[in-house]
Structure formats: C-alpha cells, structure tokens
C-alpha cells in the first residue's frame, strides 16, 4: 500500500474515512435522525408551521402531572436504591466480610440489574400482590393484613419498591470500584494524625466519594425515568407516568396532536440528557482525584 502521493486527499486517508461509514450510516439512520426528527417536530404544529405551542402545552395540568409522577418515582427509587446500594457496597468492600460474599454480590448484581421489564412486575405481583407470598405469610404468621393498611402494589409506592430491585444492584456495581479506590493509607494517615472514624468519613471519604455518589444517583434517576415495561405490566395504564402517556399517544394519539407527542418525547430527552451530562461531569471530577 504505497502512499507516495503528495496530493491533499491521498488514498489512505480516503480509505480511513470510508471505514467508518457503515457505523455512521447506522447511527444516523437508527439513532440520530429519528431522535432529531422528534425534537424538530416538537417545534412544529400539524399544519407545518413553526411554533412553541407544543412546549407550552407540556405544562398543562395532566401532562405536567405525568412528568411530576415520573420524576417522583424516579427520584424515590434512585434515592432508595442509592442508600441501600451504598450500604451494600460499603459492606462488601470495607465491612470486613468474607470475599466470597463480595463476588457473589457482584455477580448477582450483574444479573439483577438486567432483570427489569415485564418479568420483574410479575415477580413483585407474585410476592406483594393481594395473594402474594409475603402478603399471605404476613397474614398467616403475623396476623398482619398488608392491604388493609392501604398498601397497594399497583401504586406509586409499589412501583418504587419494584424499581429498586434493579436500582440497588446498579448502584452496587457503580459504587464498588469507587470504594475500592479508597486507599488504605488514607485511613491510616488520618488515624495517626489523630482523627476518629467519624472525622475520617466526614473530612476525607465523603468529599472524595460524593461525585461518584451523586453521579450514580443521577444515573439511577435517568434509568428509572425512561423505563416503561415494568410500569406497564404492573399498573397497566393506571399510573400516569410519562413513558406510559407517550405509549398511549403513539398507539392512539390520545393527545389528539401528534406534535404534542414529539414535545413529550423532547421533554423526556431533555431530562435524561441533563442527568447524564451531570453524571459524566461528576465522574470526570471523581476520576481526577483518583490519580
């Protein structure tokens, strides 16, 4: 392969750029252009005129309500997942438990974080539904009727605990490497300088960890926000979260305005996009300190 030419576009460079074409065509056709189509469409009305009306309509009570519920479920499951996930990750990395527990937990987390969607809904229905195992056991062993307290799996709370089944493992998977990065010497240095455990955690560990913690929580939030299958299978269309609203819109134009559907999608992209950008920014900050 001789490239003795001195011309501006030489053969090798052309081939170089050609090699990337299949991927680029794919990405454009099946990822970028469809998304852009929706984003652009959000700013037009059915008559083809440019308008901001769709964006304005997003703030109507029913749609805003859908966003609000989505945000609440996502925040709740993200925080719950983050909290429990953090303690689990801490337990296996720094808690002094046998190493087989750590590898089991990580393997299981790998599986559980992928076990979302419809089967997850079934699993929780079978456990905490009206005739679910736990409900029945609580009634038979503890004399405690779960459903009489007003608890219902098919609700905001029910969806949150269901989501946490994959949020917790996701947090464990993200946080374990960050906790591994805490050097043993930092703890020893802080001890010999006179600090108590609590001071070490407050002054050294939490500041070092918080970008990873915040970032992971944001990731969990975005993850929950975009999810639909579990919610659909669990609550049917009764819990009005944004993905379900969008689903109904796609299926049957319930909003009677296709462009409003685009705006709905745009809203979702904006929210998940911002979360991910923040996550990446925080992760870069965290990595800088781990040199």
């Amino acid at each position: 392969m001789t490239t003795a030419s001195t011309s501006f576009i030489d053969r090798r460079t052309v081939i170089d750029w050609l090699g990337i074409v299949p991927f680029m065509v794919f990405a454009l056709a099946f990822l970028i252009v469809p998304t852009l189509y929706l984003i652009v469409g959000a700013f037009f009305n059915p008559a083809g005129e440019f308008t901001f009306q769709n964006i304005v309509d997003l703030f109507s009570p029913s749609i805003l309500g859908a966003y609000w519920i989505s945000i609440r479920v996502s925040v709740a499951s993200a925080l719950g997942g983050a909290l429990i996930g953090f303690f689990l990750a801490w337990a296996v990395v720094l808690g002094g438990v046998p190493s087989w527990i750590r590898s089991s937990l990580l393997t299981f987390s790998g599986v559980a974080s992928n076990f979302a969607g419809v089967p997850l809904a079934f699993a929780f229905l079978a456990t905490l539904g009206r005739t679910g195992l736990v409900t029945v056991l609580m009634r038979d062993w503890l004399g405690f009727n779960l459903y009489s307290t007003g608890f219902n799996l098919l609700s905001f709370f029910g969806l949150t605990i269901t989501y946490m089944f994959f949020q917790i493992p996701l947090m464990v998977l993200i946080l374990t490497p960050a906790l591994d990065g805490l050097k043993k010497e930092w703890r020893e240095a802080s001890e010999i300088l006179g600090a108590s455990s609590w001071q070490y955690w407050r002054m050294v560990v939490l500041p070092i960890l918080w970008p990873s913690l915040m970032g992971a929580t944001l990731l969990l939030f975005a993850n929950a926000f975009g999810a639909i299958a579990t919610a659909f299978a669990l609550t049917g269309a009764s819990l009005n979260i944004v993905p379900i609203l969008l689903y109904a819109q796609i299926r049957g134009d319930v909003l009677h305005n296709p462009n409003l559907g685009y705006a709905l999608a745009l809203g979702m992209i904006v929210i998940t996009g911002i979360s991910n950008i923040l996550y990446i920014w925080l992760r870069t900050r965290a990595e800088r300190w781990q040199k």
Partner: protein
Amino acid sequence: MSFLVLDSIKKSFGQTQVVKDFNMSIEKGEFVSFLGPSGCGKTTVLRMIAGFESPSDGAISINGKNQNTLKTNQRNIGMVFQAYALFPNMNVFDNVAFGLKVAGKSKTEIETRVKEMLKLISLDHLADRYPYQMSGGQQQRVALARALAPKPQVLLLDEPLSALDAKIRVSLREEIREIQRQLGITTVFVTHDQEEALSISDRVVVMNAGRADQIGTPSEIYNRPTTRFVASFVGTLNIIEATVIDPAANTVKVGENTIRLRESIGALKGGDKLSIALRPEAGSLLENAKGDTSLTGQVISSHFLGSVIRTKLEVGGNQISFDMFNSPDAVLPQSGETLTLRFNAHDFLIIRD
C-alpha cells in the same frame, strides 16, 4: 534516658512469626534506621510503634508511657508513608492542617503553624495546589510537613523514598535529616536501601527474618559486622575460606599466604575451616603501602567502573573482589598477572555463623 523503648516485642500472623524478640532503646532526638530486605519485619515493627498492629507479646513505651493500651489516634505520633497518602480532596494547606484541625486548634493557630511547616519544607508557594498537581518529591515533603505539624513526640517514616527518582531520593533524604536535626524529634526510618540508612542515621538496626542482627552506628555496622548476614547485606564483602594453622597464634592460611589475624580464633583446631571477610576497598597494591599482611594471587578480570577500578583476584580457591580508586595514569591489571595486595590484619573479620 531512653525515649522510645521496644521491650521483647514479638509478632505473629497466624502461624508465621514475623517479629521474634525485638529489643531496642532509642534516645530522644535520635535518628534510627531499620535496615533489611523485604519481609524481614522492619515495617511490622514500625506499624506496631504506630499502633496499626499490636504486638503478640512485649511492650512499647514512649517517654516512659506504655503504648499498648493506646489507640493509634491517641499516640501523638507522626508518620510518613511510602505512597505519600496525601488526601486528594484537600490542597497542600488543608492537608498539612489536618492534624491540627482534628485536634480542635483555633484558626489562627492552624494558619501560623501550617505556614511555619510549609516554610520548613520550602513549599510555601504551593499552598493552594492539589496532590495530583504535584510531583512525587513535592508530595512527600508535604506529607512530612503534615506529619510534623501537630508536634508529634516520635516521627516514623516507612520507606518514604522508595517511590521516588534516584536524584530526588538523595536530596530529599538529606533534607529530611536536616529538618529532623532542627526539630530534634526522635525518628525511626525504615528502608531497604543501605546507602540511605548509612548516610543519615545516628544508629542503624540491621534486621533479618524478624530479628535485629546488629544495632550500631553506621561505621560499626559497615566496618565491624557481627554476623555473616550483616556483613553481606551491607556493602560488598569478600568472604574467604581459610584454613586454621595455629589457633594460639591466630594464624590462618589462604592459598599460599599466611595471615595472622588480630581477632582470637577461639575454639578451633589446626586444619579447621574458617570464614573470614574482607572489604574490597581494604587493600592497596602499592609497594610501600602500610600494612603488615599481604595476599598474592592471579588476576581473573579487571573492570573500569568510572571512579573505581574493580579487580577480581584468585587466591587459594577464593575469588576476591578488590577496588582501587581511579587516577588518570592508572593501568588496568592484566588477566593472569600476579598481584600482591597489602592490608592490615585487623581488616579481616571472622564470620561466625
């Protein structure tokens, strides 16, 4: 009056005994090095002084106070780690201030003291920098300032220079010694590098397999090693197999040469084998050199190493390495040449295993 006393310290991890009956008294303001190969237990002893490990047996006391019941953060000891261990989320100022902050000192006290420390290590212009923005040598100096800021009673250094470039190692070890002298703080320095230990210590402890083989000044350790291990670990050493001629007269035979040793041979008979040791720089080729003994042998090889010319001689079945300083008109000994080495009988050391 001994300041830091280690009394019959033993440490086992499971079935392995890592430190076997270690005893040492260190004076106030003394700079002591623990020297030895990896796994000899020197870091373990250091960590026991710090409180990270507790001795399986024995007691450690500082200034008369038994440390066994004190937790690490109650001992008021400063430590510098091999991996610097600076807190990455804090800048230089905050790192150095950490021990003071934790002790609840006032803001002005902290500021004065930190500035003082930064001046001591000549890094006051870097107070705002973060660890990831600094070189290894700079980070280690900050670590030193951080350890010294709370005015500890003892300073511990765990192979602090091992992670640094050769040039920095030399300049930093001198800086450490200088600061230590200025502050008069009792210091324990762990290293596997004998040049480090010999050049800056008041006393050196040579450790081998959990035991202190010899404790002495650098000169004593080097010139009068008491065990074969110390003799071979510290500096290069020729170990010569000699045959006893007359125990009463302390004479031995090496090849065709008779040597009268200054040390008493002790409970050996004529014909017994004896190991004696000789430093490469001990002898001289000069005809009129001072010395009451000589060794004659054949040159095997000779190498020009820059400031030193190293010649290998064959004497009575032994290979003896012999160094002489280079000079512009020095002539390299030729292979096969017969050379006579002159030295003093007391340059020989008897190695009793």
